């Protein structure tokens, strides 16, 4: 009966059965815990009186399982597998995020693997970085799915929260638990050859204090950086959002409206759309032709595509735009909007992010 299948033994597998079971067990328990973590998040939201976001304090707890799996298996791919499996378990046990959670969790796993693969070290620093990036990624992925209309400032803030949580609960705490597991050895089967396990345990025991200090400094530095950034460097919405000009131009670039402050004009325009009508009113902004002139369209370029963050796009003939005085880019809260006075409502692009010259 053994002859009927090709003879291959487990030695050929990239992940041993034990590796896979570590991943399975941690994903399962991580999936179960996520319900509780979600509850904790809601509790924190209520304490801080915000609709969502404060729960990001707990974001690192989602990444924690991925870090522990990566630290115990120590093979690239383990984090990704854990992320994917944990996401599926969460979906099947009724996550309030539905199928989106699979992608969110998978991306977290990928990021952890990526960081550990690039840095090639398993230390509290690499775990913290991996944990921070992975934890912060969930905010961004959720925004991509359900663009909530929350101000960019708020999104940046909760990403920062998730980032810190990823350092503390994902990286540092994950590392601490990995050390405990290596010392307690709850499993013995096919662990690293004995020497390596002991070396790892000894190494982690010796360095705990140092790791702690380094982590503390890291957290302090990050927090100080974050405060500095938000206090002095961060350009809040009142200064203006960013858009880019690409394609067939001499100088591609990324700009803010304030870069063209000298050319600000005010026009009167009337929005006539299929469902929407806004009577003539005044708009103040920067003429698109000024922006394009600064970037110097190449000879032979014929069209301009205006692309919005939500993927909406419209096209204009380039020569028309370059002579159009009634096409301006204005600021609307923290987004950009194209006012195309000579065009119908459908051409008044909201949430402008990009101009592409063809």
């Amino acid at each position, binding site marked *: *009966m*053994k002859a*009927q*299948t090709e003879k291959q*033994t*487990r*030695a050929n597998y990239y992940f041993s059965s034990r590796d896979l079971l570590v991943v399975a067990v941690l994903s399962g328990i991580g999936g179960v815990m996520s319900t509780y973590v979600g509850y904790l998040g809601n509790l924190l939201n209520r304490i801080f009186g915000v609709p969502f976001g404060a729960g990001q304090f707990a974001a690192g707890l989602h990444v924690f399982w991925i870090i522990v799996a990566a630290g115990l298996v120590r093979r690239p791919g383990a984090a990704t597998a854990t992320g994917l499996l944990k996401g599926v378990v969460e979906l099947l046990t009724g996550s309030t995020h539905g199928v989106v959670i699979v992608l969110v969790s998978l991306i977290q796993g990928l990021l952890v693997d990526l960081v550990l693969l690039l840095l090639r070290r398993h230390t509290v620093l690499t775990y913290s970085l991996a944990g921070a990036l992975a934890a912060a990624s969930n905010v961004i992925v959720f925004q991509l799915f359900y663009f909530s209309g929350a101000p960019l400032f708020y999104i940046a803030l909760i990403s920062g929260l998730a980032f810190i949580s990823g350092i503390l609960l994902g990286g540092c705490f994950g590392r601490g638990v990995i050390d*405990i597991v290596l*010392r*307690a*050895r*709850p499993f*013995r*089967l*096919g*662990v690293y*050859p*004995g020497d390596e396990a*002991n070396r790892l345990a000894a190494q982690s025991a010796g360095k705990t204090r140092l790791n702690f200090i380094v982590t503390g400094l890291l957290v302090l530095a990050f927090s100080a950086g974050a405060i500095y950034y938000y206090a002095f460097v961060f350009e809040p919405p009142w200064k203006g959002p960013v858009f880019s000009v690409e394609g067939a131009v001499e100088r591609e670039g990324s700009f803010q409206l304030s870069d063209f402050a000298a050319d600000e004009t005010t026009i009167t325009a009337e929005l006539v759309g299929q469902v929407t009508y806004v009577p003539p009113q005044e708009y103040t902004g920067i003429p698109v032709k000024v922006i394009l002139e600064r970037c110097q369209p190449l000879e032979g370029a014929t069209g301009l595509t205006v692309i919005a963050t939500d993927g909406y796009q419209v096209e204009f003939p380039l020569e028309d735009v370059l002579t159009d005085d009634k096409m301006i880019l204005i600021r609307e809260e923290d987004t950009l909007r194209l006012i195309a006075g000579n065009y119908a409502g459908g051409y008044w692009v909201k949430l402008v992010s990009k101009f592409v010259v063809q």
Partner: protein
Amino acid sequence: MEKYVATIKNLSFTYYGAAGPALEGINLQLRPGEFLILTGPSGCGKSTLALCLTGFIPHGYTGLMEGTVEVKGLDTRENTPGRLAGLVGLVQQDPEMQLCTLRVMDEVAFGPENLGLDPAEVTARVRWALAAVGASDLAERDLYSLSGGEKQKVAIASVLAMRPSLLILDEPTANLDPRCTAEVLAVMEKLRRDEDITVIVIEHRLERLLPLADRALYMERGRIVREFRGEELSVQAAQYRPFYRKIDRAGKPRVNTPAPPPRLQVEGLAAGYEAPLLKDVSFSLYPGEIAAVMGDNGSGKSTLLQALLGLLKIFRGKIYLDGTDITHEKVSRKAGWIGLSFQNPNHQLFESTVIKEAELPSLFLKGCRPGENRRVLSLLEQFDLLAYRDQLPFALSLGEKKRLTLVSLLAYSPPVLALDEPLVGQDPHRSELLLGALQEHRARGGVTLMVCHDPAVASAWCGRILFLEQGGLIIDAPTEKAFALLAARGLTHYLPGSSSGFITGEG
């Protein structure tokens, strides 16, 4: 066909990092169709021997192996457990941890499917294996809905479906209550009668097994020290008694002596999660009493202990301590009066060193500062744990962990001790230590509720038995009378002697 199913020659094995060998100079030959019992104190190397026969040593566990093991002519050094899978099968202690699918049928089919067998052949094997353990009616069930005994039957069937020549059962009843134990023993009797395979059973509790056995081996410190055969077996079974020393029992005081007021009094208690699992339970414990809480798994024993502390929702009823109603006190206050230890010690270890762990409840419940409670050190010493004071609690053995939890409770000396199977993993010497601690607790007038599955312990140590069935307290009586009532109800597997066939190396 070979003369022997398995041959072990001069086998020694030392786990990596261990101080001494786990197995030393083992020689053993197993004949086809033989039924062999392997027994001995915990840590004697029984389970390690099972791992050697299945090939997980040397493939998997790291350490130094000398000598050879051959199963059906295949040397385990050259053949991985996977290759040996059709020849030798291992059923482990805890059924919960060895089942890996969601349905009974998938579990039994798991092995044959991994061999890549034809679906028709897989189906035939599943039918046969389930019938062989008398579990054909379970085929369509979900695993989580089974009782412990049913799970263990499925685990045995799933190994049988590989059609092994040698089946090893490693303490297959250790995690089961007496009723489920009886079910699994019946399976072994059936296998002995109907199937022609070699069986090794690793067990402590032997009475029902000895009549089945062709041979029994007694192991100690990694060696086979005695072998019993034929006539000798039944003699040994009668001769060797349980190790538990009798404690002088404190029953309910007789009517004509001035009755002290009860220490702990429970009246009409109903508790559970959404619906009561525990229905209308009433009893009183008097100063110095030790009561055994017995019953099948799921009958509400652990529920009762947890309900006392208010860890579950209390629907009706009252709990009095020294006449004061404490039913609706905060859990953290009640914990100061009722010291609860859980079945699985891993669930109740939190700290990074043994000493911190032992101090933990004293800090939270008595407001002691670290190092302030002197009792902690003396208790650690008394329970052979002081040497580990700065080690990680999780790295201790099961028995040590259970002792550590007890130390943490005794350190703040609550008037009521509620212990869930405190004797698991303890050898006779350590059981004596526990006994001593309970005596001290009695002397201070404390009461103890102890969940235990072993009638011998209940008979030797406890003055009273509380027997639960489906959440109701059906027997509350002094030990002897309780055993008589149990016998009258036909619950014979709860009587002492039903599991008391111990074999020791002496004599």
